[in-house]
């Protein structure tokens, strides 16, 4: 993003802070695909990704008064989206395990054909990403899907570049293994 674009975004942010809420639609429109994509790749589910991406924009708006004008809005938004996703994944883990519920529920579920069809709709990349531990998934998404530099990723995740490079190395190995096991890369 060039300096003009950054200055334009800062101007929009100032207008929003000064009460011109309608201006925020410009930022939402510009970054909605990015926020939705990152949320979807983190969570693997379009409905939840939609909720998390929308919540991220609302949280960003509420926090606009604290926005630091020495960083890009997009970097700030990435960190908010990832935080929302982490919170959601943590809540999902803390929910009652399906096995524990099984004995209380009637033994009825989707038929095998329906389940297979649902699985097929999810692309191989998403399946492989789902298998990555979250810290590796975050780095792989930011580096190879969003194609960000390590400096910006370090700013978004609040970690050191060297640590992120090590994590990307391991994440790529895991990604390759999962795709190999699926027979996608040979």
């Amino acid at each position, binding site marked *: 993003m060039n300096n003009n674009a950054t200055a334009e975004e800062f101007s929009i942010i100032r207008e929003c802070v000064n009460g011109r809420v309608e201006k925020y639609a410009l930022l939402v429109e510009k970054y909605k695909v990015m926020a939705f994509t990152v949320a979807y790749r983190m969570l693997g589910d379009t409905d939840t990704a939609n909720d998390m991406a929308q919540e991220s924009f609302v949280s960003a708006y*509420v926090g606009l008064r604290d926005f630091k004008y020495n960083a890009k809005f997009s970097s700030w938004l990435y960190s908010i989206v990832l935080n929302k996703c982490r919170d959601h994944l943590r809540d999902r883990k803390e929910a009652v395990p399906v096995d524990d519920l099984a004995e209380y529920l009637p033994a009825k579920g989707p038929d095998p054909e329906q389940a297979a069809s649902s699985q097929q709709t999810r692309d191989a990349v998403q399946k492989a990403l789902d298998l990555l531990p979250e810290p590796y998934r975050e780095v792989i998404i930011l580096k190879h899907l969003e194609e960000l530099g390590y400096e910006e990723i370090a700013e978004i995740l609040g970690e050191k570049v060297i640590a992120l*490079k090590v994590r990307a190395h391991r994440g790529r190995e895991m990604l390759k293994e999962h*795709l190999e096991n699926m027979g996608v890369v040979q």
Partner: protein
Amino acid sequence: MNRDKDREAMHRMLDGDASPEEQKVLNERIEADPALKEEFIKLAGAVRMMKESKRPVPPPFFTAEVMGKLPRRGPSLVQRFRDLFSDSRVLRWNMSTAAATAGMVVIAIIVVVLLQREPQREPTITVKMSYSSPKAQSVAVAGNFNKWSADTHRMRKQSNGIWTIAIPLRAGTYTYQFVVDGRTWIVDPRAGIMQDDGFGSRNGVVRVNI
């Protein structure tokens, strides 16, 4: 070069960190080692799949839904105050606003000039008075310059039993008496001019000319 170093070089290449020399060496290693070549193709293939993966499309009313969820509120008072000084704004002038502003500037200048002027102080002359009373415990001077107070102008006793005081007075005529031990009013026996006080006694008179 061992396999771990080969892997490290492959990842440096995928990160875009490998120098042209490193890339050349790695390419030669890959061409010479089929197992390494296979591993690199798979690794690069996984990265390429990520880059080329389809970007999901947000629902059609995404922006409208976000905008509908935003809290409606104006800027805080602190923010408004801060913006008053920090935000750039265009000032629109006409003759009446220009005249009002000029008037305010003139008034401000006059006020500053007046405040900076030294206040005119009326000149005074220090008048010295003395009264001899070696046995007295206290002696004060009371007159029309201190509203005949017997407490405010206490005299100081010298070693020879003479009580003295120095009082700055502006131009004018002053009448006075001494008050010994807080109760006995004495007419100054050395006063050059005396004046009846209207109650059967007399006051000393001091004339100050500047």
